[in-house]
């Protein structure tokens, strides 16, 4: 919940409402991407990938490192950062989760592994790069005014890129061979293995895709934000909440969940001071858990 994205509260008025709605769509788009990136992994592997934020922070720091030390143009550096995010995600799966699975660990055991990684990596980054803000690129996006509503070209780029990515993931899961293999593993891991699909390779695939999306989210944030070692804490929580709001395991649901969460958070600015807006996300989660525990689009477990 970055205060810079959320407009300060003024008198409640229709203009304000429109501005907050537009801000909410931009915010919700980011949230949707986060939620989808988590759900791609969770829905297929059943792993509560608590170390998901690692991809976000690694993408940012590797991109900055590539730009600073190799002198790469920022777009190339961003690509390097995103590749690093995918690599670290796959590394966590292959190097940490897979051995745990082989050893017959419980879900709690795998979660503890994730917890350990999620605390070690940002602190390692702090030791290596220091605790202070790092900037990646100084973009100066143009401001667009439509009546009283303003937004930037960067906002548009964020919205377009995120939804294109989400659509591409949904398409790939439904229409490609790998997508069908993923669906098979999701439905019945053993059965999928029996018909010649290697579940471990599918795991690598979804960790790669999910971490790539998370890395892209990290880079998109960096385009007008600063990197800090703890930068992933808040987006990670948002990813979890969006995923659960939408309904566990539903990728489209996670996208809608994220969008709804962004809109609600932003529109709450009509009544709530920005300091208290984090409470809105929590309240949304709490209320939904009470009234509709399977999520907005989830199926009730048998």
């Amino acid at each position: 919940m970055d205060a810079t994205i959320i407009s300060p509260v003024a008198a409640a008025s229709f203009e304000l409402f429109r501005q907050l709605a537009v801000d909410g769509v931009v915010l919700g788009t980011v949230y949707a991407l986060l939620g989808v990136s988590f759900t791609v992994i969770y829905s297929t592997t059943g792993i509560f990938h608590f170390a998901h934020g690692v991809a976000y922070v690694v993408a940012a720091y590797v991109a900055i490192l590539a730009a600073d030390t190799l002198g790469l143009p920022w777009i190339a550096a961003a690509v390097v950062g995103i590749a690093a995010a995918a690599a670290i995600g796959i590394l966590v799966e292959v190097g940490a989760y897979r051995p745990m699975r082989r050893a017959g660990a419980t879900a709690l055991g795998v979660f503890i592994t994730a917890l350990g990684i999620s605390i070690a990596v940002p602190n390692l980054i702090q030791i290596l790069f220091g605790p202070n803000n790092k900037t990646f690129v100084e973009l100066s996006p143009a401001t667009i005014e439509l009546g009283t509503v303003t937004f930037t070209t960067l906002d548009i780029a964020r919205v377009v890129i995120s939804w294109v990515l989400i659509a591409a993931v949904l398409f790939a899961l439904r229409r490609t061979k790998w997508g069908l293999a993923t669906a098979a593993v999701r439905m019945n891991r053993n059965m999928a293995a029996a018909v010649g699909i290697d579940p471990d390779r599918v795991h690598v695939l979804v960790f790669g895709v999910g971490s790539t999306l998370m890395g892209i989210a990290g880079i998109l944030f960096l385009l007008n934000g600063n990197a800090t070692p703890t930068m992933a804490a808040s987006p990670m929580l948002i990813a979890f909440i969006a995923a659960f709001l939408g309904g566990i395991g539903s990728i489209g649901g996670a996208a809608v969940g994220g969008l709804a969460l962004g809109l609600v958070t932003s529109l709450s600015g009509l009544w709530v001071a920005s300091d208290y807006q984090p409470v809105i996300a929590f309240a949304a989660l709490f209320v939904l858990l009470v009234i509709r525990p399977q999520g907005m689009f989830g199926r009730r477990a048998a």
Partner: protein
Amino acid sequence: MDYYADIAVQILFLIMLGASLNLLMGYAGELSMAHATFYGVGAYTAGLLTLPVATEAIAAASSRGVAGGAGWDIGPALLVAIGVSFVVALLLALPALSRVRGEYLVLLTLAFQTVANQLMGSADSVTGGAYGLTPIPPAELFGLSLGMPTQAFWLLLPCTVIVVAVCFGIGESPFGRLLKGLREQELAVKAVGKDTVVPKLVVFGLAAGIAGFAGALNASYYQFIAPGTYDLNLSILVIAIVIIGGVSNLTGTIIGAILLGSLRPILQEVAGDNAIAWQAVIYGLLLVLIIRFRPFGLVPEGTSMLRLFRRGGLEPAVAGASSGVKSVTAVAPSIPELPPTPGASTAAAPPRTDAVVLSEPVVVTDPSPVLEVRNLSKRFRGLQAVDDVSFDLERGKITSLIGPNGAGKTTIFNLLTHVITPDTGTVTLNGEDISGLSPHRIAKRGMARSFQDGRLFERLTAVENVMLAVPGNSGENLALLATRPMHCRARDHEARELALEALGFVGMRAQAGTVVADLSFGDQKLVAIARLLATECDVLLLDEPTSGVDPGAVEGVIEVVRGLRDAGKTVCLVEHSVHMVGQLADRGIFLDQGRKLAEGTLEELMGQKHLTEIYFGA
């Protein structure tokens, strides 16, 4: 000196936090990401209550935040701090713990931790915001002040000992056993007639209350509180202490707290400004390595030195009964009815058949069916698993559900005990409609089931497994445990005796003290039957009691099931072995593809050619 005393005091706080979280994580198997928040809730509550009442001088001196508090003494402030943390935790956990998925609690506590910590920093008028609350007056007792590290250590040490003793007492009580059961097999706990939601809520609130107590002391010790102390990192540090030390083992938690608590001052010497980051890197990696290579922690459950102090122990009652005879009639003792439980819901239950005395055959005279099943149906997506099935169970008889794989036999058990909700149909037990009741209430009404795969509490001993099924064990209720400890102890002793008798009935008394995971599969099946017997239910649903049992032991199981009927129990079996059914069942109900095809004695059923063709394949 003060430097080292301060480190020691910090370790004491970590021990209090670790011990309370271990109660939740180790015993109940539920993970909370918000333990630091409850610590903070206690600290802020006590801080606000004990801050001196604002005067104009103070208000003028304090440029920001909270100028004054309620000016209370530390004593009542401690109590309120515990209460507030407890209540906040209950409200938080209510929606999550009444659901099945463990992820909900993780997510909700994580969100709560993050949001509450942000609020501590932003709600200036209540918490003092980033500036925090100060100066909180340090508590004093026996001439020692909590404000001086060395003196504080001697004040906090007994507090820590009390906290550890309370956690240990609860963990090793019948309530703690119930929590372990929940950790191992929640469904099985319901199946033996115990509520699962209330104990989880209680332990969650309790762990938070203890954290709140520690937080209140923490506020008084530092005389200053700020949001940074109670962040997610601390929550994870406490989790690391519990995991690294060993779950459901407080000795391990103490060792873990000392290890990780002394890490930071050492790192301060070595790494300077990066000490906190290095500490996090180290315990993060330790978590990954420990859970991979030593999943039960440095000091695994059950190896504690404190075990020596455990009252009663497990073995003595068993010593004389090691004849190992599987012939049931030879060892079958009597299981007397328990006296009615005060206050428990047995009052609402219908009267059961008269006192069950297992050694003598019971002549059942009541001809009305004990269980009436009408028009039961269940559809799973495209599959009609159970299709309009009706049947009765006759009192004191063994009825078997027969049919090929996929006939819907186990599904019927799941529908009868409401593990799965039927689409249509009613189930009437002793004349009472039990269709809508939850699984544990159905067991309380007198019908319990076993599971094909046993579903025992693997890391508990055989006798503990069976004790968990004994109804009316007062010590499983924490309120009674606190108010009437001697009564609870006596009841738990009775429960142990009953459990040993039930184990004796199935010929497993000699293995009473063995951890179930170490038993052979056949022996586990017998323990499962003993557990079922201990529920004191009249109607017992046995799901494939002989599957996976080696042929030599099958006769023993048959004897046991026959013994159940002779003791007046109504038994319903799902069984594949025609031999077993022929030996045992008074009646059979033939099912295929979810429908009831025929009903009668086994001879009648097997005399019908089309049935044998379905069963054995044409």
